[in-house]
């Protein structure tokens, strides 16, 4: 009698458990990402029957990319009889991916910047890929996704900084940094502008945006290995050349001409330019959308070099597709990234989501007819180094940024850089 009652209770409970657990297992995969929004392709169409036989391919990308990818992913799913899920992860995609990968909930494909590669590789989260036709891609993009002699991603977009100028205020592209400062100062004194230039130096520094000027003045952050890769063992943050370069930058700072200011930050640099307060903006293709919205006449040119200096080359950034090492469907992921992603149509669609230059030469050629900025940004990035992907680089960014901010504020150059170098060496070990 006792036991029958217990069983009755258990039976009732397990009956309830059945629908709950089938629902639970389905939502379990997406709940791990928190902000992921499911968009299974063709869930209601004929793809469902194919999906029963075929596998599932899960792709993680940021919001904009996820939306642009969706129709293509659906096409891939239909062509191959598989279910493709594109999930948008709006914040900290790399960290979410690495964590999910460790927990065994990794997607099959992830979309992101090339400087993630170092960290993803040391955490065993991505696999090398074999590009079908390396020559079809922009050589700078291929170089960027190459890490430790292996290609780790299929690049789809290339981006770099350039000088964007308000042609109403400054009709001609400056010949040199000195020329830019001179024009900027004139505009400031005549009251047409409030700032000489909008370059987001920031309260705590911004190495990425300042590096073109440092390069032009002959400075460097790190040495190179024999095969042309950044070498974290050769820290050049306080080398004599870098000190000399930062002295030139100090002359542009708050105690100098005032072209560089800590009060110009990532939040206000673009709006300072679009509201006409500055005639020059140092930024990347991502700023163009805002500039166009402001309905102003503008032009894009290379960041001007110091007189008698080296070219002001920016870092080259690349966006790419990666195959997750711990994905459940690696073969399909490889098929998708190396064969399907490397089509001009997809590259053009992603370009339309945000105007960065497509990494496939053919796709870049297609869009440059309608978008003159593409070629101008490319010219501005000529000779630039890829943004280093080695994980040790994170040890350089912070101390160097702070040193640069202090120098712009008028601090002693040698002292600031020595302190930064000490901090870098301490954390690299």
């Amino acid at each position, binding site marked *: 009698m006792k036991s029958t009652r217990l069983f009755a209770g258990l039976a009732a409970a397990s009956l*309830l458990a059945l629908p709950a657990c089938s629902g639970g297992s389905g939502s379990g995969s997406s709940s791990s990402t928190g902000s992921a929004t499911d968009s299974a392709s063709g869930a209601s169409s004929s793809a469902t029957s194919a999906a029963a036989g075929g596998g599932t391919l899960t792709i993680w990308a940021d919001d904009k990319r996820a939306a642009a990818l969706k129709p293509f992913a659906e096409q891939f799913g239909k062509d191959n009889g598989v279910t493709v899920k594109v999930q948008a992860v709006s914040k900290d995609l790399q960290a979410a991916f690495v964590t999910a990968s460790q927990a065994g909930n990794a997607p099959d494909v992830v979309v992101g910047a090339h400087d993630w590669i170092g960290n993803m590789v040391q955490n065993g989260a991505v696999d090398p890929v074999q590009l079908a036709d390396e020559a079809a891609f922009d050589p700078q993009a291929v170089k960027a996704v190459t890490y430790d002699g292996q290609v780790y991603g299929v690049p789809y977009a290339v981006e770099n900084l350039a000088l964007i100028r308000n042609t109403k205020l400054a009709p001609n592209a400056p010949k040199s940094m000195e020329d830019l400062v001179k024009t900027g100062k004139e505009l400031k004194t005549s009251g047409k502008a409030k700032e000489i230039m909008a370059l987001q130096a920031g309260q705590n520094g911004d190495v990425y945006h300042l590096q073109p000027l440092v390069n032009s003045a002959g400075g460097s952050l790190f040495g190179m290995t024999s095969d042309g890769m950044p070498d974290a063992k050769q820290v050049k943050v306080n080398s004599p050349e870098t000190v000399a370069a930062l002295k030139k930058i100090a002359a542009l700072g708050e105690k100098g001409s005032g072209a560089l200011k800590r009060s110009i930050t990532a939040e206000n640099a673009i709006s300072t330019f679009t509201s006409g307060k500055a005639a020059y903006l140092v930024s990347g293709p991502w700023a163009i959308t805002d500039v166009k919205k402001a309905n102003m006449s503008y032009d894009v040119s290379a960041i001007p070099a110091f007189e008698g200096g080296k070219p002001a080359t920016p870092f080259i950034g690349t966006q790419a597709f990666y195959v997750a*090492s711990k994905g459940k469907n690696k073969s399909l992921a*490889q098929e998708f990234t190396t064969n399907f992603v490397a089509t001009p149509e997809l590259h053009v669609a992603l370009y339309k989501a945000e105007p960065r230059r497509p990494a496939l030469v053919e796709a870049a050629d297609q869009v440059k007819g309608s978008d003159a900025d593409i070629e101008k940004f490319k010219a501005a990035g000529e000779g630039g180094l890829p943004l280093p992907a080695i994980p040790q680089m994170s040890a350089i960014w912070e101390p160097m940024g702070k*040193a640069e901010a202090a120098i712009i504020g008028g601090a002693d150059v040698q002292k600031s850089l020595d302190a930064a170098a000490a901090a870098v060496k301490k954390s690299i070990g």
Partner: protein
Amino acid sequence: MSTATREATGPAGQPTRPSGKGGWGLSGSSPLALAAKVVLLGMVAAITVWMAMPLIATQSWVLLALLLLSALAIFVVYLQPRYIPPKYLVPGVIFLLLFQVFPVLFTVSTAFTNFGDGHRGSKEEAITAIESSSVKRVKDSATYSLSIATKGDPATGDLVFLLTDPKSKEALIGDATGIKPLEGAEVSSLGRVTAAEGYTILNAGQASTRSKDISNLSVPTDTGAIRAQGISRAYEGVKARAYDKACDCIKDTTTGATWKADGDRGSFVNDKGEALSQGWRVNVGAGNFTRVFQDKTLQTHFLSMLAWNFFFALAVVFGTFAVGLAIALALHHPRLKGLKIYRILIVLPYAMPAFAMMLVWRDMFNQDFGLINQLTGASTNWFGNPWLAKLAVIIIQFWLGYPYMFLVTTGALQSIPTDLTEAAGVDGASKFFSFRTITLPLLFVATAPLLISSFAFNFNNFNAIGFTTEGGPFPPESPQVGGTDLLISYTYRLAFGAGGAQYGFAAAMSLLIFLIVAIISIISFRRTAALEEIN
């Protein structure tokens, strides 16, 4: 749970003894209570099954046993009428374990490991990662067109690669033993094998379900091995690095370099002391704690940082308390008109998302574009000077925090009986005197625990710094510790800044900070107990 009380008192209202040994209790309850019980227990079963599945998949048998035992315990407790007290205690205990004890245990256990970027998984995972990322394409080798086929059932049969050489268009068949020419194959115009005698070619959908088998199949050749890249191409690659069990090391076959496993560091290290970037998680004992104590920067700056940290937390707590109390007193007048409007206006900052308001405030303090400098006509570099930056973050916290203190003190004031102060007035005490000697002590009794918890919160108020100054301004001669750095914001940078994410180190530091806060809180609560004696 409502059934428990019903069972305790019988239908006629007379107390019935819990039926002791017998009676699995689904009887003696109202239908509604019974239904609630079945639904709730059903949910427990459902959650158990849902939680068990990943545990089975990852083969975590200990956790699975724990899960099943606790599920069993829940069923026993609620199906047996005799366990009355556990019926009330179990839900609370479960939540306590889940949300308090488990995270604390996890933090403590993490504090003794090197868990972090590059050391996340097991040694086996690190070896797999090293080996698979070392597969390089054989120089000048061909890319083959690939079809995946089997002699048996597409879902389970052994797989073979049907390849076509791009130049000769010759069809080949490869399996785990090697590669040989394939007879009787149909090759499409694109160069892919579309049919072969005796073999079923897998379509994309079928192939995608065999992903693991495809990845694991490598066809040995003289110079390396042919592996699939996706499901339509294959390439000849060679695994440059392999794990050697005999020497517990990784060997590079092309360069001859070796990296020996170092169980203390969780890395493969060569004789120069250089480690491969893919490591694994190991126990490092007290290593993380000694690292905190040996940190030179922390040694030289610890006292000044701690002093500022205390000052910040105390200033924010008592500042907001003073402002909140002053406003509460001003509005604590029975004949005030429009009281509700005032209160709503005052509480408004509390209702807005704090992090967004901090970002707004940060921009308002901007030297050239900020509202504050524009209104005052000054060009104060708020975040450039350590003292002004300290002032700025405290101002921001005042603004964010005073509505809370206003709400708390308003409530406390209303609960203090007015006859006490009236009696004091009759005895000739001044208003201020009666406030100081009667209202304030009573107020403190009511609000002291809140002040202590507010102090503990502000002592670790990472957002207050992270969203505004990020710890800055940083002195150029020692850029590690900024003028507004709290212990928590400094340690966050130490653990997640330059060296990638180092969870083990971060856990160790948070334990140390917890110790500081815990000691202060214990002392404060003892003093509060003394305060209560006023009553």
